[in-house]
């Protein structure tokens, strides 16, 4: 359709305001910085390299899981099973590796096989969540509530109610995966960074990510845009499973154990990190960097509370809750509008 006089129109596209700051995007970072200032004010030790490294390392577990959750939630789903899934995978890894010590010894092969098992289980568990909810047309909330109970039970059963502990030999081999560092950056942080970057690229720069946005935003439109909605949704759960598996791989060498209390409430923390980061719970909009910052914020709040005894221990939860609400309020930036 050619239109000769189109040129005469004022250019309506591509006009961008220079130096426009997108408050929505930087909001989480601002909130994180405020937290850091608060931490430093409370205790100088907060800024010590050891403490910072602890915060980042600790955030890695929840952070990696939350990167996966960002996909699920962006595509309009939810996964409540991640915490139990992590416990189950950790338990299975430990059992397999302990079993292998007899036959092939506590060497690198054993650890590699353990890691392989973790990945297979993570993908499998994710696929189950995805397939049962899409094929069975059952709400993801129900399906993953069910598998949450399932995996929690399985790990309890495998550990006979107690704790599964990794063989000491294997622990030595495996140890660097958690305790090691490259150029001073702890391994878990590197892995977290890697997962976040890959997640970012996948969500924002590939057709798959685009499809996640589309499905979460309007499933009908996605369907009419030749998107295999069921497949993409299932894939988001598989990505979630894979992320849980990766988180577990770096978790296991830390304490070398798994029990029924491993990963309890991680699902809530992961979802909270995602939502704090600005992803919409109803789907259609997701932000990996927000999620990363969300995970860091949650860890930092916990850390700050441990650095002071000004607050009664009983009230930790209250302070934590209030800080989360205030941080989200600040970062959403709605208070700024009032001034206009």
């Amino acid at each position, binding site marked *: 359709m050619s239109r000769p006089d189109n040129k005469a129109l004022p250019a309506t596209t591509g006009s961008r305001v220079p130096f426009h700051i997108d408050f929505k995007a930087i909001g989480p970072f601002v909130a994180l910085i405020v937290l850091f200032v608060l931490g430093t004010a409370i205790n100088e030790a907060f800024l010590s390299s050891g403490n910072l490294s602890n915060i980042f390392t600790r955030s890695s577990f929840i952070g990696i899981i939350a990167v996966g959750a960002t996909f699920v939630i962006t595509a309009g789903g939810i996964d409540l099973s991640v915490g139990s899934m992590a416990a189950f995978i950790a338990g299975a890894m430990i059992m397999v590796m302990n079993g292998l010590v007899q036959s092939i010894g506590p060497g690198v092969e054993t650890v590699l096989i353990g890691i392989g098992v973790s990945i297979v289980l993570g993908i499998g568990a994710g696929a189950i969540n995805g397939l049962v909810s899409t094929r069975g047309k059952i709400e993801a909330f129900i399906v993953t509530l069910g598998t949450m109970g399932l995996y929690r039970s399985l790990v309890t059963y495998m550990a006979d109610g107690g704790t599964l502990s990794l063989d000491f030999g294997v622990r030595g081999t495996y140890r660097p995966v958690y305790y090691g560092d490259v150029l001073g950056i702890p391994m878990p942080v590197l892995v977290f960074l890697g997962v976040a970057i890959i997640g970012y690229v996948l969500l924002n720069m*590939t*057709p798959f990510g685009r499809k996640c946005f589309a499905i979460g*935003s309007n499933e009908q*439109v996605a369907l*009419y845009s030749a*998107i*295999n909605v069921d497949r993409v949704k299932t894939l988001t759960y598989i990505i979630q499973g894979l992320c849980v598996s990766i988180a577990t791989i770096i978790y296991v060498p830390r304490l070398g154990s798994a029990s029924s209390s491993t990963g309890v409430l991680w699902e809530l923390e992961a979802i909270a990190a995602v939502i704090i980061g600005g992803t919409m719970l109803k789907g259609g909009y997701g932000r990996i960097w927000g999620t990363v910052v969300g995970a860091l914020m949650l860890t930092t709040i916990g850390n700050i509370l441990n650095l002071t005894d000004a607050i009664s221990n009983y009230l930790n939860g209250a302070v934590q809750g209030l800080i989360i609400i205030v941080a989200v309020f600040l970062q959403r930036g709605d208070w700024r509008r009032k001034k206009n």
Partner: protein
Amino acid sequence: MTDPAVSLTGVGQTRKLRLSGQDICKSFGPAQVLHDVSIGLYSGEVHALLGENGAGKSTLVKILSGYHQPTSGQLVLDGHKTGFANSDAGEKAGVILIHQELNLAEQLTVEENIFLGREMTRGWFLDKVAMRSQARSLLDRLQCDISPETRIRDLSVSDRQMVEIAKALSKNADILILDEPTAVLTGREVDILFGLIRRLRAQGVAILYISHKLDEIKAIADMVTVLRDGRHVATHAVADISKDDMARLMVGRDIAQMFPDRVADEQAPVVLSVRNLSVPGMVHDASFDLRKGEVLGFAGIVGAGRTALMEAIIGLRPQSGGTIARNGSDVAIASLSDAKKYGIAYLTKDRKGRGLLLNMDMRPNLTLLALEKFGSPLISRKAEEDALEKAIAAFDIRAADSKTRVGDFSGGNQQKLLLAKVMETDPDIVIIDEPTRGIDIGTKSQIYHFIGDLTAQGKSVILLSSEMPEMLGLSDRIAVMAAGRITGILSGDDRNEHEIMRYATGISDKNGASPYEPS
């Protein structure tokens, strides 16, 4: 800018100026979409508002009814300066707007939507009996036989529009504003609506009517105001102005020939052949051929099953029995991606619900259907932006800026974006369902020529339309459906309104006895 209250004489002499907007300006962020527009609505008068897509019509009427606040300018109601803080205030003052885009809660029923926010009660409880019977009588006034208990999501778009009209009626408007009410209505429903508008006019209601259909404006309106690029161009008595004049005022130039000149090759090879295709409960035993370079129209009454048939062909609906052949060889199409693979694309008539992601901007919408074209494994942002630039030029999409949510686009520009989106797959066969819904006359002509260009490139088009001129002006042959069956395929001189109606109503049926005649 002239004061409409003074300048309007003639028809309006004995009538009272009810509501006027004076020197209305409106900006969204940095983009100004209305510049000093004035308009006056008189009781007992139908005032038409005309303008290209994106001219600012919807924005203006939203300001008049309180949904938007003007950046500057003044509303005057019955001689008093006024301002509506929100739509509620507007409604309290008797100004009712029927939106261009449907505003219904999909999960709720017809009755629930009609009375939403103004439920009738007995004591603390809902008076469902009263609401149901009142809903029934409102729908009866519109000769609409849907049940008040049907959920909106189970209704066709035209029925939804009738519900919107019923909802507006229930509010007893003094000043009624209708924003393109007929874009999704069938001819019969338009007639009903016009009857209604005439009655309301006789009762002294002031009516503002937006449409891209100049025939309608000629038929129903007393006055017409034309907007172009957010500016007031002219206000005339309809009797004093011809359709061509209106079009010229609107577009700012002469509209060339409306339909393209095309000659289809009747011997061209068959590119798509459908045999005995059925969709459970919706389509029965449909067979037809589509030739290279041809426009095959599909006519029928709403609910005849045209959309269902097309959705089955492209794999969005389960087909039961039947075959589809592309270029002579049978193909299995189980999903829209299969259809895409075989070069078939489909443009839905439900642009809001199925066509566009309203909360996103143009770029992701444009490329969604053909994502793989824009790079793998990574989407090339540059390729996307190039495509967007091309599409904006090719389809004359006008948006304030490329970051605007598609949901904030004017209706016509949404439609153009949807068309651009479908064309990104570069299909050989395009199935277009109501392509010019809500499109202004100038752009309409462009779309027709665009379809002509497609066939000239050897592509084939299936056209589903409820606009008879469009159907007759573009189609080489016309398949007519009635009650889920193809009752006839008309070509040559048979392609006329009378014949189409006979087949569409089942009076004639080439494929066996008419289902409506006693056997």
